């Protein structure tokens, strides 16, 4: 189903964690069928924003709407998939058993596990216990579980951290292919280089929205050569206006 308008719209979102504002009045939207990068330094609220989009975050104010429904609505659970920053998998299970379980929960066809294993280069690891995998391998298993149900919105929290550059390149290629067939991808990173891969950006700092839009627009607006430079320029100007 192609959704007209924004895949995600966020309006006046406020989240408090431990007495501090983790997100402070964030308003933005995410166009469907794009790779949107959620970029900002560690601790800026990326994970909180992602959790708000998938509906696992308790919010204090504002609204988050996904495909026209309030975030976390039960009808969205088959349409939205999420991977946490720390890979989540059952360490005692083999890679195949882990994925078979999540496949059953999202009610995907039984051929789907092999398809995804192949796509993520995990076929040779299928019989290994998840607990014996390297960090990068476990990250891929966690990502694989999110892909099983062919979600329309995929929210990935730092999926490429700690991966070797070849694999990272392959994953970004896959993200763009998925966006090409209409999947909305929201991917967080604290590595500014990765922002250059994205069709759309949401820049966050200290729980506040710094800017949002396609990278070339942000660079054009700030006269910067790279997203990193644009980020720094934006931080400078927001600091002056405060």
């Amino acid at each position: 189903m192609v959704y007209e308008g924004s895949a995600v719209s966020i309006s006046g979102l406020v989240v408090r964690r431990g007495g501090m504002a983790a997100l402070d009045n964030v308003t933005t939207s995410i166009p469907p069928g794009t790779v949107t990068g959620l970029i900002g330094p560690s601790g800026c609220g990326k994970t909180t924003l992602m959790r708000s989009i998938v509906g696992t975050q308790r919010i204090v104010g504002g609204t988050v709407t996904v495909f026209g429904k309030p975030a976390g609505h039960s009808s969205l659970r088959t349409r939205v998939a999420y991977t946490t920053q720390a890979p989540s998998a059952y360490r005692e299970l083999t890679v195949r058993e882990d994925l078979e379980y999540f496949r059953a929960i999202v009610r995907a066809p039984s051929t789907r596990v092999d398809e995804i294993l192949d796509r993520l280069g995990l076929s040779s690891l299928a019989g290994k216990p998840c607990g014996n995998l390297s960090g990068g391998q476990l990250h891929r298993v966690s990502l694989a579980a999110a892909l099983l149900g062919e979600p329309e919105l995929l929210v990935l929290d730092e999926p490429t951290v700690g991966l070797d550059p070849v694999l990272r390149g392959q994953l970004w290629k896959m993200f763009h292919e998925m966006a090409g067939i209409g999947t909305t991808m929201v991917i967080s990173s604290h590595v500014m280089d990765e922002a250059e891969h994205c069709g759309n950006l949401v820049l966050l700092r200290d729980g506040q929205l710094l800017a949002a839009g396609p990278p070339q627009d942000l660079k054009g607006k700030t006269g910067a050569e790279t997203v990193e430079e644009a980020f720094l320029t934006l931080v400078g100007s927001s600091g002056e206006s405060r």
Partner: protein
Amino acid sequence: MISKAAWATALRVLHQVQHDRRTVALILLVPMVLLIPWVFDDHPEVFDRVGLPLVGVFPLVSMFLVTSITMLRERVSGTLERLMTLPMSKLDLLIGYALAFGSLATVQATLVALVGFVFLDLEAEGPKALVVGLAVLNALLGMSLGLFVSAFARTEFEAVQFMPALLIPQFLLSGVMIPRDQMATALEYASLALPMRYGLDAMERVRDRSDFQWELALDAGVVGAVTLGLLALAALTMRRRTT
């Protein structure tokens, strides 16, 4: 009606346990081994008295431990958070756990009862199947208690500490080791509030009489009700939205 998600969860939990061979061996063998020394006791009447209640204690304790650790890992590893974003209800998850640990407890209780009845001259006036059934009911009580307390532990180390805190006092006051009429009155009343007492009382009733007893049905009912209550509380500790 048990959903596909609940069946899948049961299968997954059993796979998790099955990969840990030592745990499986401990669950199945330890109760049998612990029954044997009683046979060599100089007072066989002691084993005649405590043997059957012990058959009910083992499943309760081991399912409490295995469940609390499994659920704690689920909470800590992020898989619970992931499940909460998927098309699955908390009831599916709880039923899946109950199916998995209930079947594991059935195997455990059958084995220990078998060894008791066949080799150790354990005796029960009532039906032997009822002994196994009550042991499984006790196991489900242990499981629901484990699910609930897993919310209050941050590490496996902490989770294990709940056993001496919650189970040992219940066992001591249950009347198995020291008859309740020999206890201080306050302790005797305190035991009324402890669910393990009812499970073990039921075991004593099957041991002593073969006819239908309302008291036994009532004891089993209390254990069942407390189990369901604890499951409801456990469900409350699993939140789709967290701070």
